[in-house]
């Protein structure tokens, strides 16, 4: 749905650009292509890594392991799964909901959602290619710690 909006936006702007100035539009397309080709090798590596990771740490396995481990240890384990795996939202949220049903605590789920979305271990090589390793380690490290803070606050608010 949102992807469709993105396409409509990009294509509308592209046609507008084409009618305003063909030369500039050609420059823009060259730039788009260059930016894409530039990052393609690193991107391909990361996509392959995600494919491998998702097969080894499948959502089924994650649900089983996390459903059995609750409490502080469960929360820690959940945060590691969240940080390492990269599961698309439409799989992750139903999964989180079923984890809640199978006995996981609200803090455990909160730390899972936050680490899953904010911490990207498998995408780190790509992030480092753009912004360097220091930024990558700092952003992901802080996001990891923040996920616990957020989870504790959510645990208190939703109690």
């Amino acid at each position, binding site marked *: 749905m949102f992807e469709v909006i993105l396409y409509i936006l*990009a294509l509308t702007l592209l046609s507008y650009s084409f009618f305003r100035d063909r030369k500039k539009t050609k420059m*823009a397309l060259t730039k788009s292509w260059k930016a894409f080709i530039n990052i393609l*090798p690193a991107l391909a590596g990361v996509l392959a890594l995600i494919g491998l990771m998702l097969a080894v740490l499948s959502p089924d396995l994650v649900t089983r392991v996390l459903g059995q481990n609750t409490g502080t240890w469960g929360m820690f384990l959940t945060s590691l799964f969240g940080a390492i795996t*990269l599961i698309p939202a439409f799989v992750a949220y139903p999964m989180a909901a079923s984890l809640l049903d199978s006995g996981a605590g609200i803090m455990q789920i909160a730390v899972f959602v936050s680490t899953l979305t904010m911490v990207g271990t498998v995408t780190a090589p790509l992030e480092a290619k753009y912004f360097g390793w220091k930024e990558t380690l*700092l*952003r992901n490290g*802080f996001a990891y710690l*923040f996920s616990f803070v957020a989870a504790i606050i959510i645990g208190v608010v939703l109690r």
Partner: protein
Amino acid sequence: MKLIKPYILLILVVIIDLGIILYNPDLGLKIFTNTRANILQMLAILPPIFLLIGLLDVWVPREQFMRFMGEKSGIVGISFSILLGAAAAGPLYAAFPLAAIMIQKGVKFSNVLIFLGAWSTMKIPMVLFEITALGSQFALTRWVISVVGIIVMALLISRIITKTEQSEIYARHSNL
């Protein structure tokens, strides 16, 4: 060696994949299916993003970016960065090239980090999903905490990464 270096991660993963296929064909097939799905997802989401990058580069002058999100943009810059990130769709790796063009256009480093943070966990499509699956109280509480956390973390990180290091990152993107 210089030719191989960009592909090092891809080569490593493919070698591991081949090993797995030899010992566990079922798991190997799963990896293949997953990787194909990932590539298809990438091909679906990236074309409009890279189109926008090219168009932004050519049509929106540096001054516009600096005015709304540059060094002196203050609270306006923070708000713009959150809005841009939250209005997005797609995985975090799609945000990196957009953040790179922001850097190239002179957007303040902390605002780039806020944009990345907002994209990672505050995207509106994702929040809607979260509300359906985990309830509005959970999703909205997490959203509010995330706004605060992302701003604080961005300001901290842009302090820890020195101005010299920041200008190295900016130089890297100056002639993309």
